[in-house]
């Protein structure tokens, strides 16, 4: 009997122990489950497949040049014949390299093939985001200027803010577009077939098209883009150079180009970049930061008109961002034309309209819904991001990729988009400084913002102006997306009201200004031969 009851007792103990352990064990199991889960972030574009262009755009060598005087302004030497010993030796080297490709090389081939313009645009967005940080104040309350001759210093050079970024995107895109049109000119002048067309033993990742391979468009892109990016983001020279080399290697390993195709392309790309850089060095960017005298005169002029002048809301007070950017050379407009497209003045700071606008900002931010906050954050595009122009480049990329464009046609899309957004930045900054209008938080200090407050005058909204132009340009190129682009432009605009940093009049007039510039740029390029 005694032993039986002992056994029963023990059994009961075991039961209760199990019950007592149940919860901790459940928690531990859940911990183990979470610990083992994969946190890898999937970036959609990283693993997208090579692009086989829907059309080779054989006549792109005849499209209108924008900076170069003619497609053959840079001379490309005649290629050797495909029957020559030298060319045959290149094929042998190419096939030998293909035979021992590493996994990293295979990945590079997948990454670059047919998508050079798209990839460089992604890389540039990353560079803009990396360098889009304002200088920190010095101990004496002043702000050091980024110095192109000391790009690794504190602050880094550049501060890739929206005007700087719009100009950077446009220079890279225009230079790529010019270089590729020149490349197309020579491709069809020399008509050297792709390596796999001359030697079936050369393997390809996408079927070879009829596009001639000399000079290599991939090498042209590597040369022209690297030179432009090194000018614009000098502290990133290391990776820019590596990426460019990787693209040229991928051109050969993908079976699209031989060594001489690449050498000619690289030389052409660099020579075109040099011509575009000559323009860049004389476009007025060097004086865009302005100075204390200009700052004071802008404020004094607003006061003299009887308006409340913009005041920096930062501590210590920071000069308005690139206050002289409005004098930087536009791509498609003379200074008089820039002025002719600008909106009229904002409502006077003492007017009932401005009081109404201000009250709307106060009311909206005090009762912001979670959906409105999401829109403010979605379009924030502030410090540390690719900026609003970068955001629109990312939007365009989806459409460019889906359209399976040739490299030269893809370059044209970005050139049109980014010339328009650069010209917007010029016109918008000129207007901002002309009116020097205060932000909502200056007129009503009880207005607090849901995003960082940009340190420059309010009118008109840069987001709205960029977006109006981008939606107009992209809407014509991709009519199937026109309604979406316009809705995005509206959302980008209103996001600034939700964020508490713009009045409705900034947004409405900004978008209309942007649409005028977008239409202007479309007209400017309507007879370029590409349509």
């Amino acid at each position, binding site marked *: 009997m005694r032993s039986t009851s002992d056994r029963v007792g023990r059994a009961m103990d075991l039961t209760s122990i199990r019950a*007592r*352990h149940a*919860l*901790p064990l459940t*928690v*531990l199991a*859940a*911990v183990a489950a*979470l*610990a083992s*889960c994969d*946190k*890898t*972030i*999937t*970036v*959609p*574009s990283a693993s997208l497949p090579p692009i086989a262009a829907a059309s080779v755009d054989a006549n792109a060598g005849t499209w209108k040049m924008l900076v170069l005087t003619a497609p053959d302004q840079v001379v490309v030497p005649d290629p050797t014949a495909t029957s020559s010993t030298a060319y045959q030796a290149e094929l042998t080297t190419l096939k030998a390299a293909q035979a021992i490709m590493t996994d990293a090389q295979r990945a590079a081939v997948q990454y670059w093939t047919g998508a050079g313009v798209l990839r460089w645009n*992604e890389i540039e*967005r*990353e560079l803009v*985001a*990396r360098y889009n*940080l*304002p*200088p*920190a*104040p010095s101990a004496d309350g002043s702000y050091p200027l980024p110095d192109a001759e000391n790009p690794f210093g*504190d*602050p*880094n050079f550049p501060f890739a803010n929206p005007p700087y970024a719009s100009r950077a995107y446009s220079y890279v895109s225009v230079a790529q577009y010019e270089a590729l049109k020149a490349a197309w000119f020579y491709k069809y002048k020399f008509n050297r077939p792709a390596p796999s067309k001359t030697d079936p033993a050369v393997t390809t990742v996408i079927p070879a098209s009829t596009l001639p391979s000399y000079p290599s468009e991939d090498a042209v892109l590597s040369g022209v883009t690297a030179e432009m990016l090194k000018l614009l983001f000098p502290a990133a020279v290391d990776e820019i150079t590596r990426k460019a080399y990787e693209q040229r290697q991928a051109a050969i390993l993908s079976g699209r180009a031989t060594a001489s195709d690449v050498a000619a392309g690289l030389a052409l790309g660099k020579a075109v970049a040099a011509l575009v850089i000559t323009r860049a060095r004389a476009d007025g960017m060097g004086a865009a930061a302005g100075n204390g005298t200009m700052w004071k005169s802008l404020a004094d002029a607003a006061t003299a008109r009887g308006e409340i002048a913009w005041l920096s*809301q*930062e*501590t*210590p007070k920071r000069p308005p961002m690139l206050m002289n950017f409005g004098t930087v050379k536009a791509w498609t407009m003379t200074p008089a034309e820039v002025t002719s497209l600008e909106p009229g003045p904002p409502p006077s700071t003492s007017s009932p309209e401005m009081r109404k606008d201000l009250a709307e900002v106060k009311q909206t*931010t005090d009762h912001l819904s*979670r959906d409105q*906050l*999401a*829109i403010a*954050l*979605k*379009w*924030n595009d*502030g*410090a*540390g*991001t*690719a900026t609003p122009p970068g955001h629109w480049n*990312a939007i365009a990329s989806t459409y460019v990729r889906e359209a399976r464009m040739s490299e030269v046609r893809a370059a044209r899309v970005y050139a049109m988009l980014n010339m328009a957004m650069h010209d917007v930045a010029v016109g918008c900054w000129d207007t901002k400084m002309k009116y020097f209008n205060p932000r909502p*938080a200056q007129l009503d200090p009880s*207005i*607090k*913002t*849901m*995003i*960082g*407050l940009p340190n420059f005058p309010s009118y008109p909204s840069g987001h709205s102006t960029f977006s109006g132009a981008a939606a107009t340009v992209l809407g014509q190129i991709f009519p199937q997306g026109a309604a979406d682009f316009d809705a995005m432009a509206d959302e980008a605009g209103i996001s600034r009201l939700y964020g*508490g940093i713009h009045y409705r009049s900034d947004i409405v007039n900004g978008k209309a200004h942007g649409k005028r510039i977008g239409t202007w740029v479309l007209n400017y390029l309507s007879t370029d031969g590409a349509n």
Partner: protein
Amino acid sequence: MSLLARALSLTPLLAGVVAVPRTAHAQTLEDAELLRPRELNATVMYGHDAWNKYWEGSLKRDNGNIGTVTTSSITSTVAYGVNGNLTLFASLPYVSTEASQGVLRGMSGRQDFTLMAKYRVFNPLIAGRARLKVLAVGAAGVPTSDYTPDFLPMSIGLHSKSLTARAAAHLQDRTGWFFDGFAERMWRSNVTLDRSSYYTDGQWIESNEVAMPDVAEYRGTLGWQRGAWCVPVGFTFQRTLGGGDIRRQDMPFVSNRMNFTAAHAEVMYFLPGLSGLRLDLGAAHVLSGRNVGQSTTIMTGLTYAFHL
């Protein structure tokens, strides 16, 4: 003892930071104390945390555009002794933030709900005079509102789900001296932002999803308990196991590597004549950190204990 001690381990976080906090899970959960079977504790705690200096990566600085960032929290906690070896806790803070300078809007809202189970693994008597308690602790945290983690330092939290495993020990001498220590690891789920791209840790990522590094925390407390009084004093170390630094003059980001070392002290007093009512008062100060504010935290709590 010590809702407060536990709370303090979290508050530097909670307040902390340039980045606010991870979940307030540690609220009430740091010590080795278990409730008696079928004992129920209800606690309300108020926390006030402020900093005017923070570490931008490893660079300590101030910032005229935020001045002093203050985080206030009211945390409600219920604890229940299932039996002598197992106590469950449920905790939910309401958090609000404010900056003394600049234009950034403070935020407020319900933060993260934490459920914790504390289990006593063994409880031997050492050398006939000191009692050693060894505990296994598990916790789960989940956000209870859709606050954004993408507006640091004004965001009220990081909006990550979390699971925590902790090993804890408590050694108490019969004269009243005691030592508490624990090591824990928190696993955190990825976070979703309202934007489609972000730059952090040297990478531009075109996705709205952010990988959240896990967090390790260590704590050591020395204390004395006699009669109605209990006074623990100690250090807490938090190390985030990955993540990038705040870059020069950048905003903080949800997945930053937020580290700190904090000292904390606490006084608990069981109110005489009111059986079951306990008053806690505590303070913590961050001594060194990385991507966090140098916060000073004051916590005060009231606990009522009763039997079901």
